[in-house]
């Protein structure tokens, strides 16, 4: 390794930057086939069917002499793991079709932006307690980097929709941009509450702040944000927004197949479609890990062993823990997909603007009060004040709900304005019938 140190510092920097970039990409990029397989199997299991379980099984001949003797008649089960690889091979070898009258540059650019966002989204997530495990950079605005990159994700869907020169695609793109903008706000504010809780935008600091004793009392359980009241509410808000940001069911309106064919990627096929899919799964995984970092204590184990019995820090354990938490997040993603029906568009907007955003804002305000009270009066008073605030919040919410239920009719009717309203025609026809 000496030759490395002998290089000029500038080249060393470049090399380390490349290394870091690879470190950032590999754990997100590599598991994609496994994630797709996992989703299909889990979804099948939840829907009481089998799912892909054959592809990749290798059965050796019993009789052929070509096979070494110890392998004859053996059967290697891969549980269908190779299905994703087969799919990928298929996608990348199919004939590349690009419709006429598309905006070619943008058409090609759109999936690349999606890929770019998915790959760079996780660049500030720490995977272990060491600086080496924080890919790319542990910048002091880490949380904002995540928000910034994820907000760029809107371009991919919007451009894909626009460049396809297709009505459904355009509508999908429009829906996507509106949805992303709407949920971005609640997400940012939910994260802001956590930033205030930890006192730093730096991701490693946020993880570190969750390594304290639970509520300052229970020493062997870490004080993950999700255990605190404001963290819990933020986690709910962020979780919902996270699903909406990745356009996953039940928020998959931009690609709602029974309304818009396939939404923004109707015209896409082969590699580009594959890239969209890959980006989606990578984004899912990354968001799961962001969730884990912010709310589930990052790379920390759920029990603080070092308090019970001091031991040497093993950073690789942290990486495993982190990836496991990411997998847990994925499971929830799939579980939600299997459980909830797709939202109607107005329900989507109502949920985002009328429920999540106010909840996140109030939560932010209560967090501020909490921190203030903790600083001035100590933790006990903060708990009292905070819980009273949440109680009031719940009562107000219940009262509003009660009132709304009382005033609104049980069955909501909504009118749909069509582009060419048939109402005009209808107005004329009865008259004609009456006048003769």
């Amino acid at each position, binding site marked *: 390794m000496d030759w490395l140190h002998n290089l000029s510092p*500038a080249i060393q*920097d470049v090399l380390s930057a490349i290394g870091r970039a690879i470190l950032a990409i590999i754990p997100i990029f590599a598991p994609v086939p496994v994630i797709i397989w996992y989703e299909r199997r889990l979804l099948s299991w939840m829907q009481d069917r089998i799912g892909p379980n054959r592809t990749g099984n290798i059965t050796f001949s019993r009789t052929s002499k070509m096979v070494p003797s110890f392998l004859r008649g053996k059967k290697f089960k891969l549980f269908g793991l190779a299905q994703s690889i087969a799919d990928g091979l298929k996608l990348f070898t199919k004939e590349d079709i690009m419709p006429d009258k598309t*905006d070619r*540059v*943008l058409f090609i*650019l759109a999936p690349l932006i999606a890929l770019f966002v998915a790959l760079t989204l996780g660049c500030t997530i720490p995977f272990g307690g060491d600086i080496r495990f924080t890919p790319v950079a542990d*910048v*002091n*605005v880490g949380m*904002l*980097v995540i*928000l*910034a*990159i994820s*907000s*760029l994700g*809107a*371009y991919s869907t*919007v*451009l894909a*929709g*626009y460049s396809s020169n297709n009505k459904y695609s*355009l509508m999908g*793109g*429009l829906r996507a*941009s*509106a949805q*992303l*903008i709407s949920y*971005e706000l609640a997400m940012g504010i939910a994260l802001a509450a956590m930033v205030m809780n930890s006192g730093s*935008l730096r991701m490693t600091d946020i993880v570190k702040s969750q390594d304290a004793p639970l509520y300052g009392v229970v020493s062997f359980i870490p004080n993950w944000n999700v255990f605190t009241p404001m963290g819990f509410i933020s986690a709910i808000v962020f979780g919902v927004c996270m699903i909406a940001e990745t356009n996953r069911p039940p928020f998959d309106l931009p690609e709602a197949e029974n309304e818009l064919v396939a939404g923004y990627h109707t015209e896409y096929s082969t590699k580009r479609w594959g890239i969209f899919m890959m980006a989606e799964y990578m984004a899912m995984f990354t968001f799961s890990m962001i969730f884990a970092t912010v709310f589930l204590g990052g790379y920390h184990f759920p029990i603080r062993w070092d308090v019970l019995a001091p031991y040497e820090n093993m950073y690789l354990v942290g990486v495993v823990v982190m990836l496991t938490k990411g997998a847990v997040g994925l499971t929830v993603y799939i579980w939600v997909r299997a459980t909830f029906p797709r939202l109607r568009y107005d329900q989507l907007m109502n949920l985002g603007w009328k429920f999540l955003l106010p909840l996140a804002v109030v939560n932010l305000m209560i967090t501020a009060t909490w921190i203030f009270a903790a600083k001035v009066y100590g933790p006990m008073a903060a708990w009292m004040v905070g819980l009273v605030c949440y109680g009031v919040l719940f009562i107000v919410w219940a009262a509003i709900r009660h009132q709304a239920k009382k005033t609104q009719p049980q069955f909501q009717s909504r009118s749909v304005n069509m582009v060419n309203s048939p109402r005009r025609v209808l107005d004329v026809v009865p008259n004609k019938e009456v006048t003769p």
Partner: protein
Amino acid sequence: MKLTPELIIFAMLAGPAALAAVGVVAFGSAIRSALCLVFNFFLLAFLYFTLSMDMPGISQIVVYSGAIMVLFVFVIMLLNPKLIEERKDLKRPFGIAFGVVLFGILASQVLPVLGFEGAKPVVHQIGSPNVIGDALFSSYVFPFEVISILLLVGVVGSVFLAKRRTD
């Protein structure tokens, strides 16, 4: 001029940024202009990073690339701007000429006097969120409040504009 890594990075960022700026003006279709602008803003953010201005840089991405330009793209898509074809008229040559002259005048006046490369930068960490937040809530608290009111007015105004007249 010595070729330092900083200069290389600056050139890598500034060159495309300048090209993108030209692209904003030169492209015929509005959406391409918008994309150029996004690209330009994105690179600008990295230029800010090279100035060790973390917070302004990242807000640049969040605010401009992430919010404002998405709005632009959204509106362009809604309006379907192919309706407007850019006709050539007398303003174009005049505008370009004037622009070049403006750049010439400004550059000739400003650049020669900028002789402060010698002074040693001291580490103030002026780009870090802590320092900016501190300043925002102490010496700049009044502008901060005014800006918040301005944003509120902006929100109200846009809601009012977007509201369908029901008369």
